[in-house]
């Protein structure tokens, strides 16, 4: 008999109470239980970063967390980043303007990672931006457009 727990958590400001099997990862819970499919799964061993979400404001790989571990915490996913259905967050807008996405699969993880980074480091150098995203793999862009977007938002300079 599969072991289940009842969990209460907030996701993008909305409170949920759900029963979840203990072995289900947070990534799968968000995607399949809550139908928030913006968080993507790329490797399930903590390397690609596509599944990155914010838990209490800190970026974490949701494929390496169990859903039950999010009980009592606040999760922010990509769906919670834009301020409204008609406005984008400045980082999202900059990614668009700088062609910082192509297929878009790594993008949600990039954005959540950068949201934490920009809070901690509002005026990064290019090198610091690159280090901030080196745990997020992209196979399409070569990263240049993403770096440009972050520097555009922070007013920083290309090295």
């Amino acid at each position, binding site marked *: 008999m599969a072991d289940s*727990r009842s969990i209460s958590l907030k996701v993008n400001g909305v409170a949920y109470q759900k029963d979840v099997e203990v*072995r289900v990862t947070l990534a799968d819970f968000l995607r399949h239980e809550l139908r928030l499919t913006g968080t993507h799964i790329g490797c*399930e*061993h903590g390397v690609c970063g596509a599944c990155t979400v914010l838990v209490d404001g800190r970026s974490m790989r949701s494929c*390496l967390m169990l859903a*039950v571990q999010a009980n009592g915490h606040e999760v922010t996913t990509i769906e919670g980043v834009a301020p409204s259905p008609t406005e984008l967050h400045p980082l999202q807008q900059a990614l668009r303007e700088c062609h910082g996405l192509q297929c878009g699969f790594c993008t949600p993880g990039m954005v959540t*990672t950068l949201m934490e*980074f920009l809070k901690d480091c509002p005026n990064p150098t290019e090198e610091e931006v690159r*280090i901030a995203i080196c745990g997020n793999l992209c196979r399409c862009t070569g990263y240049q457009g993403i770096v440009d977007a972050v520097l555009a938002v922070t007013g920083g300079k290309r090295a």
Partner: protein
Amino acid sequence: MKPPPFAYHDPRTLAEALSLLGSLDDARLLAGGQSLMPMLNMRLVQPRNVIDLNRVEELSYIRLDGEFLEIGAMARQRDIEFSDVVRETFPLMYEAVRHIGHRQTRNRGTIGGSLCQLDPSAELVTVAAAVDATVIVASQLRRRKLPFAEFPAGLMTPAIEANEMLVAVRFPVWKPGHGYGFEEYARRHGDYALASAAALLESDHRRITRARITVGGIAPQPQTLPAKLEGRSPSEALFDEAAEACGDLEAMDDVNFTGEYKRHIAKAMVKRALHKAYGRLSKH
């Protein structure tokens, strides 16, 4: 790649956790999950029980206790990275922690998890060896202290019984103004170190009075470099000479690199770590 079924336990206190460890069969401790979760996802391990330590708050602390820095097993690597007391009293650890994976890894990963995993490349393992840390291991019945040199029982295997867990680590602090340097070479930023070196120096302004160089990443356990620097005048030539001692170290061949190559880069890491350490020695 989904985890196999297991029974899940989330104790709130250390006593509860130890009680579970003492009574459950085939249990793994889940700390930061950065090592265990990939193994579960890949079904490389299939424990009957998982004991999640993330709600045991009493295991998460960093405190200076006289000449020791004591860190609880569940202290996050991120908290170590941002700790003023670590930065002030144990800057080697501060420098090393920043090499661990990426921000997402460190936000979740713990010192206890890293030390118990005993990955040859693990920065915290090398640092613990560098200062002869003491690990504190507890079971329901007793607490014991173990010098870090006795902590590994073999490759990636700590000398911990099935009913025991690591609860804290005590790091002796070096004199204020000591020189420190941590260097590692990895293929990409954040990757596992192919070789690392931790250098610690104290001097009396003319000669080195205390030196400890530890090489990690190239063998199952960190190794103390058999180079005698005490009593010598610090110089680049001395550091080059010390680095040559890497030729005497054990080094593992693996699929990608030979032991010979690893000794070679260990030399470079030792030189660079010593150079940094010397530059940071307080010279008043």
